[in-house]
């Protein structure tokens, strides 16, 4: 086990902990961690808390450097970190606060099927999904686009896919930012990034990305479930993917240029992966324009993946996807920076909110939500590991007040990939999963081991914290039946 983090941590209440501003000279605000005592024990075992303190160095940071209960050691920012900066007060934007996989995110769709109706078809579905949906490193999609179209994708996002016939207007309403964040600037994206994103639309990618067939095994809020049209035993689908090579290259290009901004703008951060520039500087604006392009690419990608999934179900069951009720519940980004309005000490401010492994969680009535979710609050989708559960939550007003409308994004790793590979036998693991009724197909056996349930925190514990802290509310829980991994 790695060294225990020895920094100073003060208990605020059962679910919140503070790293005081005095912990490190240079911190502009305190760090606030959402966790309970049990999760905190694991969190202290890596360098995530030090990273929370480091993020507090960012110029213009407002309120606190925040961390969600699925926090773990990343590079620059911790994974599970939220930081809002005020552009009017020299606030910065950092590519490291978004990550290489820009708009890595997740979408959830429902079906009309009950588990009993299709339990004998799960294996067929998994095999056809695996063969029809390109996954793994370097995988290329059947959805081919010209260079001109690629530019269009970067501006139109999921709308591009819908215009091509890969979805409906309703899908766009059920996507964060309606599937296309405004202000994307294709000219800010390098030729190399275009090249790296070429041919990857409609591909799942690798690593922790997945497509899962799930079943709802627990309802928590009957009214919200009714509003979403969800019930016990109902089959749902979850898709987790991002902006693929295009996003990696955008992050790489701008980290490179922003390293030089540290000196230019006299910015002092303890980790160069926190390289940043003022939001309102030419470099900051260029990154934001390029990041938005990658975010839109990711929304188009998940829309294409959903289209392919619907096609597979149509192939297996011979019924149209509409008749199978395969409607999108929602799509959320969990690696992104957004310009949003929030109340700070009672005053409305326009802030740059970085969510690095964190999900937007706006409460009922928020103007960014489509009419259909104005009463329920924003659906928040939390994928867990392949052996346990995933969740549907809703955002809250309390999140808007405390966390810039943010909550957790998943289970969070607890074991490194190398440690997982050393201690887990893939055949034993697959048998264990099969005995629980979970079928897994992956491009590589390594991926299965690296992504084993033992490598993750228990998502149930993570969700307990965000629910009890009130920064989102449980709606229902799913368990996996069929898993496609990259």
């Amino acid at each position, binding site marked *: 086990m790695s060294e225990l983090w020895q920094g100073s941590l003060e208990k605020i209440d059962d679910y919140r902990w503070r790293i005081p501003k005095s912990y490190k000279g240079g911190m502009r605000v305190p760090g606030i961690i959402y966790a309970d005592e049990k999760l905190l024990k694991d969190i202290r075992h890596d360098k995530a808390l030090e990273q929370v303190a480091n993020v507090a160095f960012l110029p213009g940071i407002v309120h606190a450097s925040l961390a969600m209960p699925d926090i773990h*050691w990343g590079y620059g920012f911790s994974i599970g970190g939220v930081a809002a900066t005020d552009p009017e007060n020299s606030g910065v934007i950092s590519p490291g606060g978004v990550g290489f996989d820009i708009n890595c995110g997740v979408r959830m769709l429902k079906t009309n099927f009950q588990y009993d109706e299709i339990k004998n078809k799960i294996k067929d579905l998994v095999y056809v999904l695996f063969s029809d949906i390109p996954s793994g490193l370097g995988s290329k999609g059947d959805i081919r686009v010209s260079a001109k179209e690629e530019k269009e994708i970067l501006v139109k996002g999921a709308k591009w896919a819908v215009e091509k016939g890969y979805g409906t207007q309703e899908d766009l309403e059920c996507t964060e930012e309606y599937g296309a964040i405004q202000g994307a600037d294709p000219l800010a994206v390098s030729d190399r990034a275009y090249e790296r994103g070429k041919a990857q639309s409609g591909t799942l990618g*690798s690593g922790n990305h997945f497509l899962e067939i799930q079943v709802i095994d627990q309802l928590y809020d009957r009214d919200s479930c009714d509003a979403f049209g969800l019930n016990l035993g109902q089959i749902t689908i979850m898709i987790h993917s991002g902006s693929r090579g295009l996003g990696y290259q955008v992050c790489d290009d701008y980290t490179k240029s922003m390293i030089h901004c540290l000196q230019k703008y006299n910015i002092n951060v303890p980790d160069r992966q926190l390289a940043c520039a003022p939001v309102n500087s030419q470099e900051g604006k260029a990154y934001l324009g390029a990041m938005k392009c990658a975010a839109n690419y990711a929304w188009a990608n998940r829309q294409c993946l959903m289209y392919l999934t619907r096609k597979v179900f149509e192939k297996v069951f011979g019924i149209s996807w509409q008749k199978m009720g395969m409607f999108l519940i929602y799509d959320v980004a969990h690696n992104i920076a957004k310009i949003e309005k929030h109340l700070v000490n009672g005053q409305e401010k326009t802030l740059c909110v970085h969510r690095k492994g964190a999900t937007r969680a706006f409460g009922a009535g928020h103007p960014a939500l489509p009419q259909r979710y104005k009463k329920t609050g924003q659906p928040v989708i939390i994928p867990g590991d392949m052996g346990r559960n995933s969740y549907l939550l809703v955002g809250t007003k309390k999140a808007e007040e405390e966390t810039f409308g943010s909550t957790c994004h998943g289970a969070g790793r607890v074991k*490194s990939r190398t440690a997982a590979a050393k201690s887990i036998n893939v055949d034993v693991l697959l048998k264990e999963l099969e005995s629980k009724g979970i079928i897994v197909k992956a491009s590589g056996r390594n991926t299965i081991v690296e992504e084993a349930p033992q490598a993750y925190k228990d998502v149930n514990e993570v969700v307990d914290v965000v629910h009890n802290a009130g920064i989102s509310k449980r709606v229902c829980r799913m368990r996996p039946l069929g898993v496609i991994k990259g």
Partner: protein
Amino acid sequence: MKVKPYKFIEHTADLGIRVKGKSLKELFNNAALAVFDIIAEKAASFKLQASSCRKVIIKQKADNLEELFINWLNELLSLSATKEVIFEDFKIDKLDEHNLEAIAVGSDMENYKVNTEIKAATYHELKIVKTPVGWLAEVILDV
């Protein structure tokens, strides 16, 4: 089995590696070998031959050695993705604190079994130090 020119260092979410080299050139070479060893392994029947070789010239400039090191690895990852090539041999012609000129040699990705996607090399906890016997580097790779 050939001894690998690197060791893993623990990192919760990503992959950390430690590489050594008798000279700076060897350090850069071993770091690149490590990255592509993690990404892919050769299909059993495949041998890199002149006819299937793909060569790429790489030129990088940077303000300091650490930036040069990160640029080198990220340029290779980027070229590997765009050209769909796995690199397995590197000839570093010129290397000082600010400049690098090298040729990377590899072949089409389809000749390999790809294991892991590395998105990029990061600056987080990056270490490049001179030791009594040569050079040592530690770098965290985003996977």
